[in-house]
């Protein structure tokens, strides 16, 4: 293993971890308001495919990103209608949204499979422009990567330092108390879900328009669910989500490196490393109730008579 391969793992972890981080941040906001979004996988797919399609059509990746973000928000509004307005079960509604997303994204992306796009441009880390091409290309990142960590801080600030964030967290803990304080828990949950969708859309856009630069069916490969797990890993805290996303994508990149370096282990087994890691983390955090889940996570808010 040399410097180049370590740099490779690092670079690949950052590229694949960015979409995961955005999605996780979105889910942190959603779950802080009390909503588990199991439909994220579907939201990601629809956002990724429509963003990609728009990029192909317009030739402008920025318009593609914008469309992916808005579609993400709108997809979540479907979930919002089901669980906030119709008071449906959160988990069932989320799964329904996921399957809907599978179908819809396949339909949207069908004619764009294999299309070439004008991807988001990559900008080398400042000061590293003069490195050999091989190195500098590994250290050139697109704008969404540069903004990912600042966005995590922004989410933290929103949740813990603003009036809106206080109300949102209150809804996730005890919606009746939030209501008694003069807030509208339904409205706040819609807002949280919309923001959750916007951030998932941003993650999806990074995946199809910046990182892989392609559309293939089911290209998200479980990222929506990993994000839900990472929220638990980060214990509902946006800054710990940075660590979680990097650790997970680092594990993915590392096992890819192992595979390519010809380790005598079945590649199928190596494929499972990141997921085994996820399971281990969930086990480790399991019984720990301190600073853990928002108290009314997953509960339907029924309002008062």
């Amino acid at each position, binding site marked *: 293993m040399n410097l180049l391969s370590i740099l490779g793992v690092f670079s690949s972890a950052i590229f694949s971890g960015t979409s995961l981080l955005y999605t996780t941040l979105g889910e942190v906001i959603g779950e802080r308001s009390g909503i588990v979004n199991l439909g994220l996988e579907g939201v990601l797919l629809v956002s990724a495919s429509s963003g990609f399609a728009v990029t192909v059509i317009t030739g402008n990746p920025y318009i593609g990103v914008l469309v992916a973000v808005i579609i993400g928000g709108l997809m979540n509004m479907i979930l919002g209608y089901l669980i906030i307005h119709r008071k449906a079960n959160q988990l069932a509604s989320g799964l329904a949204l996921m399957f809907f997303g599978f179908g819809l994204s396949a339909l949207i992306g069908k004619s764009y499979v294999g299309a070439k796009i004008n991807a988001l441009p990559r900008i080398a880390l400042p000061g590293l422009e003069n490195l050999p091409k091989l190195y500098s290309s590994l250290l050139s990142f697109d704008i969404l990567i540069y903004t990912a960590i600042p966005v995590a801080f922004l989410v933290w600030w929103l949740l813990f*330092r*603003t*009036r*809106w964030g*206080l*109300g949102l*967290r*209150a809804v996730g*803990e*005890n919606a*009746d*108390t*939030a*209501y*008694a*304080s*003069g*807030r509208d828990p339904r409205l706040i949950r819609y807002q949280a879900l919309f923001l959750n969708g916007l951030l998932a859309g941003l993650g999806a856009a990074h995946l199809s328009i910046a990182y892989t630069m392609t559309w293939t069916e089911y290209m998200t490969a479980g990222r929506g669910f990993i994000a839900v797990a990472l929220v638990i890993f980060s214990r509902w805290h946006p800054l710990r989500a940075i660590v979680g996303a990097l650790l997970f994508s680092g594990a993915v990149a590392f096992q890819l490196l192992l595979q390519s370096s010809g380790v005598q282990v079945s590649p199928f087994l190596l494929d499972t490393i990141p997921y085994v890691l996820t399971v281990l983390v969930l086990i480790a955090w399991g*019984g720990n*109730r*301190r*600073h853990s889940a*928002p*108290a009314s996570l997953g509960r339907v808010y029924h309002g*008062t*008579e």
Partner: protein
Amino acid sequence: MPNPQDRSPMISLRGITKSFPGVLANDHIDLDIFSSEIHALLGENGAGKSTLMKILFGFYRADAGEIRLSGKPISIRSPRDARSARIGMVFQDLNLIPAFTVAENIALFLPNLKVVLNPQEIDNRINEISKQYGLAVNPRALVSQLSIGEQQKVEILKLLLSDARLLILDEPTRVLAPHEVEALFGVLDNLRKDGYAIVLITHKMKEVLQCADRITVLRSGRVAGTLLRSEATEEKLVKLMFEKALSGLKITESKRDESSKPILELRGIETRAEGAGVTLKGIDLQVRSGEIVGVAGVSGNGQKELCDVVLGMTTCVRGEKYLFEQNLTNRSVGAMRRKGVGFIPENPLAMASIPFMTVLENMALPHTWRYARYGGFAIDWKSLKEDIQKTEKQLGFSVNFYAIAKSLSGGNLQRMVILREMTHDPHLIIASYLTRGLDMQSAIAARQALIQARERGAGILFISEDLEELFMLSDRLLVLYGGRFVGEFKPSETNIYEVGHLMTGSKVEHVG
């Protein structure tokens, strides 16, 4: 106090009516609330006190009626409207968020909170008011780490800082020890002097006579009468609260025998708590035939864990449990049940019934092995019914066998659980908060059931936070604090203040 007849009310309710499915909770209620007054709303559970105040707070919406603020009609459709009318309320089951700090909980209710929070400024505002009324709290503490008494203080601070002029307190003394109640009344007295209007919802007559200026009694959703304190007596209030005279509790002599072998014995029991639970430490306990052993304590000091250990729902890491001198440490609930252990838990709807099953099905649940026929492919409903009816005759109350458990009122549900647990004459009965949420008549029936069981020779472990009830029924009284027994008394050899101080872990002082 100026004569209230000369003043116009701060808030008037006129003809407030509210029905829930199957219940008329409020039936054309008129009520006037004055500033600088403590107005007690007295009545049985289910008389409609909380509903009425939740309507005034906008938490429920009335079907009919009018609310007037200084004579002008206003519309209160949500707590937001109530807050702009400067009305604040503390709910019965305190509504603080345990995962938030004190400051965050209070900030949630600040009227002019800035878009970007300034923690220092919020802390300063809290400290200022808390100094003014002697309600010391640490704004940075997590609410989950506060005692119930401290949480009560935070709730009151929250109301004061929310700029409310009318403070509604729903059963604020329910979870407080006697000396904490006196401190609370002191604070309320100061608030009254500063011009606040206070509504105190309660069903405790003594408290009303101790601190209220004006008393309104509600009975089954209607106003039974309003009295000034000067004209109120306990007798008059009882007459207003109950249509019929209450049948008194008949307390028979206990037949305990000090020398007999204990039915239940715990030796040095220790548990390991998970999450927010309490760890029991060094619990020694004996319950003999024919005695009621009372366990006093503020809830959340290990009562639930104690019940769970006795019944076998949690395992203990140290110590031994004997039932009839047989070591049953860490054996299953089923093994305990079959030896004749009855359990009346604190929350019958959540812990002792399946809400969507009928009463009869619920009755069968702990005894399915007794009524199973043909290897469990059939249940002998007839003999179950006969057994229950026999108990009904003994205890003097009954429930509808075919009602869905969820549709029963709290009192009837508790009756169902008591009937079920008393059937088959259990040798040991664990009764936890037996009368919580029961109206006075149901409470008397429930207590009578325990006394009858004692007369039969059953041993009873009786957990409660109602000291009066504990002193009335217990043969021996233990005080549970922080997962340990911190005191053991004969009720005749102590008083509520001594026990109250032990319950809250504070030093015993002389209260005048």
